[in-house]
């Protein structure tokens, strides 16, 4: 019996539901090709950060101007090299190159700052040939006077603005810190999102207690982190008219299967590939196949959403009961 691994994501046809999420894996065309060769279903490019473009531009200007025209013997300190890749050109040309080279869908990823920036760069990514665009939206509110509704509205406005300017499918990658994720999800879909990607994860700073300094801290994810998006995927499935994708905590074939069953059209991984190499793609796909053979599944489509809240026998398990169950199990563990 041949198994159909294909899935669709925002209308794009994917050969399987395993997608490379936005990460340094897509920094080079060589690696993108290797991802394809290894069997990945689609690739989400690393994020084009508007803030980074701005900072790099300002930093370059600082380096080239600092200390100049001050002292007669050294009116400047660097040669005029000519063109600098401080804008989005390198990113856009990589998308172009990727589209020329690989057959799998290439999804652009954008993190903007200004309203104009989101739209401008989204348009450029579309023009570069991206099959779809993932908006990597996050905002860390620190102002006590800013209500959550304002943060939500800002996110919705970004999606609306971009939707009105680009025609490729639009995914929105959001964080988990909304009071009512389903409500925000619905509003994002209403604003034009074709898919929701769960979830964005911030780099969490750490504290050096001896030197009294805040230090950046990056820990690659593990399967435990699947729980959060898994739950919300299961809850959102069928409640919003958009595709769902899980992008946190996908490390094993079991994680992929769980994600699909919860309702994701695709599951995205990066940490696992960064840690253990691109060979994991083939391995996971084979393991999925074996599992599906063993459990007599004929297609991926069959299982998508099969364990969503709407379809499970006990929907409340994704809500309060889940909490209770953990508590119940706690004494038994010790």
């Amino acid at each position, binding site marked *: 019996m041949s198994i159909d691994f294909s899935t669709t994501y925002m209308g794009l046809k994917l050969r399987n539901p395993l997608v490379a999420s936005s990460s340094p894996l897509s920094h080079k065309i060589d690696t993108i090709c290797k991802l394809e060769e290894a069997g990945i279903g689609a690739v989400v490019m690393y994020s084009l950060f508007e803030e980074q473009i701005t900072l790099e531009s300002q930093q370059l200007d600082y380096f*080239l101007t600092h200390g100049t025209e001050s002292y007669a013997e050294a009116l400047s300190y660097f040669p005029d090299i000519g063109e600098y890749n401080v804008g989005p050109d390198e990113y856009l040309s990589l998308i172009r190159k990727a589209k020329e080279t690989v057959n799998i869908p290439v999804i652009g990823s954008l993190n903007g700052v200004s309203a104009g920036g989101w739209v401008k760069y989204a348009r450029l990514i579309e023009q570069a040939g991206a099959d779809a665009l993932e908006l990597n939206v996050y905002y860390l509110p620190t102002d006590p006077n800013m209500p959550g509704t304002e943060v939500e509205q800002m996110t919705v406005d970004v999606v609306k603005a971009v939707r009105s300017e680009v025609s490729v499918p639009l995914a929105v990658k959001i964080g988990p810190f909304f009071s009512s994720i389903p409500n925000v999800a619905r509003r994002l879909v209403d604003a034009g999102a074709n898919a929701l990607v769960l979830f964005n994860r911030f780099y969490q700073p750490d504290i050096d207690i001896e030197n009294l300094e805040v230090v950046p801290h990056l820990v690659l994810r593990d399967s435990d982190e699947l729980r959060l998006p898994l739950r919300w995927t299961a809850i959102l499935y069928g409640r919003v008219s958009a595709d769902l994708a899980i992008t946190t905590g996908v490390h094993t074939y079991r994680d992929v299967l769980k994600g699909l069953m919860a309702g994701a059209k695709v599951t995205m991984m990066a940490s696992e590939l960064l840690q253990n190499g691109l060979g994991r793609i083939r391995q996971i796909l084979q393991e999925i196949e074996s599992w599906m053979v063993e459990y007599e599944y004929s297609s991926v489509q069959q299982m998508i959403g099969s364990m969503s809240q709407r379809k499970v026998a006990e929907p409340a398990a994704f809500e309060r009961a889940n909490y209770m169950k953990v508590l119940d199990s706690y004494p038994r563990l010790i």
Partner: protein
Amino acid sequence: MARSYITLDGNEAAAYTAYRVNEVIAIYPITPSSPMGELSDEWSAKGVPNIWGSVPRVIEMQSEAGAAGAVHGSLQAGALTTTFTSAQGLLLMIPNMFKIAGELSSTVFHIAARTVATHALSIFCDHSDVMTCRSLGWAMLFANDPQEVMDFALIAQAATLEARVPFLHIFDGFRTSHEVRKIEQLTEDDMRAMIDQNLVLAHRERAMTPDRPIIRGTAQNPDAFFQSRERSNPFYAATPGVVQKVMDKFAGIVGRQYHLFDYVGAPDAEYVIVMMGSGCGTVEETVQALLEKGEKVGLVKVRLFRPFSREHLLKALPTTVRAIAVLDRTKEPGALGEPLYQDVVTALGEAMMEDALPFERVPRVIGGRYGLSSKEFTPAMVKAVYDELAKDKPKNHFTVGIIDDVTYTSLDVDPTFSTEASDVVRAVFWGLGADGTVGANKNSIKIIGEETPNWAQGYFVYDSKKSGAVTVSHLRFGPRPILGTYLIQRANFVACHQFHFLERYNVLDLAEEGATFLLNSPYGPEEVWDHLPRSVQQQIIDKKLKFYVINAYDVAKRVGLGVRINTIMQTCFFAISGVLPREEAIEKIKDAIRKTYGRRGEAVVQQNFAAVDAALDNLFEVKVPAQATSTFDRPPVVPDHAPEFVKRVTAQLMAGRGDLLPVSAFPVDGTYPTGTTAWEKRNIALEVPVWEPDLCIQCGKCVYICPHSVIRAKVYDKELLANAPSTFKAVTAKWRELPEKMYTIQVAVEDCTGCQLCVEVCPAKDKSDSSRKALNMHPQIPLREQERANWDFFLSLPNVPKHDSLRFNNIKNVQLLRPLFEFSGACTGCGETPYVRLLTQLFGDRLYIANATGCSSIYGGNLPTTPYTTDDEGRGPTWNNSLFEDTAEFGLGMRLAINRQNAYARQLLEELRSLIADDELVDGLLNADQSDEAGIYAQRERVAKLKAKLAGNDHPRVRDLIAVADMLVRKSVWILGGDGWAYDIGYGGLDHVIASGENVNILVLDTEVYSNTGGQMSKATPLGAVARFAAGGKPTAKKDLGMMAMHYGNVYIAQVAMGANELQTLKAFLEAEAYPGPSIIIAYSHCIAHGIDMSRGHIHQKLAVDSGYWPLYRYNPLLASQGENPFQLDSNGPTIPLKEYVGKEGRYRILMQANPEAAERLIHEAQEVVEQKWKYYRMLAGKGS
């Protein structure tokens, strides 16, 4: 191809032509000619072809001598070859230039003429360098402005190919090399038309080739040499004719007609000036003004000075001439007259003897000197010369532009005489280097010069300080070509971009009546008046100035430009000067912004656009009151208690009034008192560190890292606090050896540059609020008065004696040593000066410094004020700078002199033992152990006792002994310089000196580029870093100077990075000093040329060490003699990838942004070099491979 009008400076004009008509360019950086080589290198890197379609090869050599050698070789092998240089650089080329001329090789060297160092170094202009070349057999062609520079570069090239005589194409350094002008740009078609291809082929045919072998460069005997020298005479005889022919051809193609001697003025002139160089423009402007008054004056511009054509000179002079003044921009002490004067006199004298003078009467000829080291040469001075010529007995061998009250050579000048035209916009801008004023003005010149029919000129006066540098821009725009080559004398627009300048400088001195005054002011139009010094108010009223203000810093902050107010002030200039209609001006400014910043990214463009728009909304005219109301005025430059010399001379130089000082005010031989920076309170820091005693752990790191010696520590008796100012801070000192004492960290807020390094390095934080450290930055102005009093009180507290209870072998104790190097003008946050300060703390009282030319000689010895100072006993570093290339030898000479005098003193002690009649004293002096501070102190006591004993004894041998007795006390010789000196131009000498085994110490302040001249590559530049002459990233690894020195086996070597390991640095200095032979310390010095945030320089040093790029080590031959491994590795192996270090520095990031593939490849290679080197070092350290 049609010619276009462009604005550029003389250097670019020369390089533009020279690059296109040559194939090989060998250069070496030297101010002010460096930009010619840099531009050529940039063009070559970008693949810009010459007129034959090939890309010239540009190569940086290790010195000008090396460049000349490479040029010589290239010429001999048949390539069209050139170089660019100035001053000492030209002098280093002389031996090769004799050869090149002797071999009749066609070439043009382009020279930005600069003063040759005599009693002092000067980067500015006169002809003392090129005049040393008169005997070389080179043609010398002088261009007077950037247009002529572009034209003459081509004329010289065409002429040399035909004449075979090599050419010096000369123009004035700075005044022409750096003056921006609107000129007509030659096209490549013009060049092709001018260069005769047959002559190019002939040049190639004369070249060496094994296919048609010849031999040149033979050695000759008396039988052949003389005749051979005379054999070339026909070529020199023909050269003037060739040049004129080429000039005529040029006129036919381009339209501008030049002659060997160009005359301007009345056809029947009676009084004529003969001169060459940029001053001709000012004379011509003055002649035009005097002609309008009916005066019969004229000017002969000498174009071809060598070979000197008597025939052409006589033809150029009007037959009516009665008196001639020959002006030379050089001085030849002891000569009958300066070179041009002598030539003119000889020409006229010979003609007279041959009865061939074409004049109505024999004219009187007088000679005069002007403009040495870019001394201003104004129309008033020109008028003074003409007035002198009209006298019955005019002064010969005069000077003009100074007041000579010693030998009374100077002419009187009427300062009110002016030829400034009323229809010319004459704008003067006072700015800071950091605020971008000069860049904006260069942009304005481009806009007006290239986008309107107006003619434009810009000249920029820079500071000799690298931090808080003041710039004054002089811009002229007018309907006719601008002739004057002097600073604006009467401005109809004055802008002051820094409010605090009003308290330091007479900013409005140049403003003429009715001028416009634009001020960047933190105060609005209603409040500003009350904040102006009274004299400024009075000037505004008396001169009826139109007065505008803008709070540019506020606008810049709002649009995210920080302290860059250039665009804002430029917009205001256009808005109120009326040079262009406002809307048109705004549009053109925005176009210029896109051109200037476009390649740096859209964000920067948009910020500047926002600044333009915001500027107009915040520009206000001030209603000027009828009366001056302020009760304060500009304070005196130095306080009354300053030393007499400082008050009489230094203060005048500081205030910008040095030109008014008479000759008698100056020392006869360039000897100056030290310690003068202490009198120059520059107040340049917006924020300064403030000490929190409750948090301080008294570690001394802040004192150790301070590049400007402005943060200091003292430990003292509590009773001394009785008279302390109320805000003076003190806590109990934490020294076991110094119980019950008090401790204070004090900041000299008026000398601080605000670099923040002390705050960054401070490890002490408030346990309840980690943002509060023991040092925190606070605004300077509110603290100024109180901290001035605190600083004065702090200085009155005693210093801890060096010879007493403390040993200065740790950072904590070293902080208590008084720096004898303070408040230098080095860049804010300089990475070199902390090493220099440490050197003076440890050994300053016995320190000879031989300093290579470069940053350290500029912040160490550039007037008006110098930073080396004295201790409480009046001892301190004695300092001198010889040349760039000979510093190691210079220092070695000092050591030899010290040793010789020491030996003589010891000889005299023995000889006079019975006369001294104190064997204990004599034996003590002869056998003193001076290995530590206590021993040195004791020896000084003995010397004092000896001198006291011998005082009044007139015996010649006794007087000899007294004269050399101080040499019985240990002396320390340190040779200082940067990597350009140590790795490149001075390496031969350095190598010889360390091989000598003599006891000298060498401190290499390694910034990995030629920092002082703008970041050119040296052999210390790391693989992958972008530098000038390494636009594509340096493709080869840094030379391992330490390892090369190590092979001698008897040299102490240390590689240090203060920011990575403070104690290792200190140990290295102490060990180098103690080592009885040669020592060399290679000190990582972060630099503004690295493209870093200078307040984090120490972090970059640490990253360099952590990445393994800069291993710390010490190689002490004394350990070998004790049977130990002399090589000690003081840092751990690479703990971070190289990328983590280099990715934080602009010098690498620029390449990552411009050419990511190349950057990645080079960084990968650099990582491999790091790993290989580390393995080798580990092996040397006996830690396995």
